[in-house]
């Protein structure tokens, strides 16, 4: 069985990536190949990484409040590149409850708010991959 490949990206301009790093390590310890891109990624950079790295999951952690703009932009670009249908696109961070339905409508499959454990996130990924692992 091949490993799950996950892109952990940090869009937006805020300077904290502690949460993203914790997530990256948890994914690695769960046996995944984690492509970690670091801070301040543009939607274009995230999309190119998703295409070139052929990932199963794009996990974006965001704190800056620009989620309503940045996350749907990534979805739109991924559709343009033809990779959206095969990729699980996830968001996490401090995101107001009322924005969550709107983000899901825009194509983010799931939003994980600060209460979620890494175990729950990993479980969710394993159960919702869009491609098989054979």
């Amino acid at each position, binding site marked *: 069985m091949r490993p799950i490949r996950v892109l952990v990206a940090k869009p937006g301009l805020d300077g904290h990536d502690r949460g993203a790093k914790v997530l*990256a390590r948890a994914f690695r310890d769960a046996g995944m*190949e*984690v*492509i970690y891109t670091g801070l301040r990624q543009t939607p274009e*950079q995230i999309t190119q990484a998703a*295409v070139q*790295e*052929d990932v199963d999951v794009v996990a974006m952690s965001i704190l800056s409040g620009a989620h309503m703009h940045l996350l749907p932009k990534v979805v739109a670009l991924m559709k343009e590149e*033809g990779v959206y249908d095969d990729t699980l696109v996830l968001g996490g961070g401090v995101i107001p409850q009322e924005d969550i339905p709107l983000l899901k409508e825009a194509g983010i499959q799931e939003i994980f708010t600060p209460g979620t454990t890494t175990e729950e996130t990993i479980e969710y990924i394993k159960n919702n991959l869009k491609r098989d692992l054979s």
Partner: protein
Amino acid sequence: MSPLELARLTLAGDKRACSRLISLTENEGTGYLDALKAIYPCADKAYVIGVTGPPGSGKSTLTDKLAKTLADGGKRVGIVAIDPTSPFTKGSILGDRIRMGAVSADKNVFIRSMGTRGSLGGLSKATANTLAILSAYGCDYILVETVGVGQSEIDIVRTADTTLMVMAPGLGDDIQAIKAGVMEIADVFAVNKADKDGAKKTQLEISAMLDFRMDWDFKPTVRLTVAETGDGVDGLLGDIMAHRDYLSNGGKLEKKRAYKRMSHIRDIIRDRLDRRVEELMADLAACTDAGRDPYSMSEELIRKIDLTRI
């Protein structure tokens, strides 16, 4: 999409197909060998630059800047960046993209991160195939960043046309290790972090080591660089191109690539034999008979290898 369709689209320059084909090959999925055979006529077109040196010396940052310079000059560039896979969890964090901000959204640059996935050297088993695929996709140059520890330097020499060794001041014992064994493998040196104290001293030490040998056909240059600002990167690229020119005279590049093909064939055969040996060992796992000696048992197993199953 079928493997042959992926191969056809990769040859036509389709980025997504190229990416899929790399995964198929890395995972040794059904039909991957057929796809590799189909792209083979274009597998050798790219010029391969190996980037090695101790962790933290600035390989990724320098690779980013070299790729940017090449891409700005109108070239299509591939980057393969290898990081270690944990032998326990089989997971990995592939973090070289963090330092590749100058080219990570460039449509003319294709970056692929790979885990070593059990390979002991500084490259992964699938590296040679990935280079072939990126070449077929249309890359003019491919930069391969190794893990940068232990024996990885040997692997990279067998894989790259030009090998760049990146050093930096303040890495201590690593320099000693490099001096002890692998001076001979680098075609070009960079002493990166030239903005820091000790860079000149490191440059002199390396030059002094190189001076020990008198009979150089191509004596490596030792270039000071500051990868973070791009200082010295144009000069370094010039050094790499000088080595390329050197190889292109008198059939040296062809000879090097013939040697590379031999290594690749040897690796493929060894890998397949190895797998068969593991199968036989698995059958044997139940055997706890301490009374039998390992010599006659291995002879017995060798007779069972069965060439049709390799």
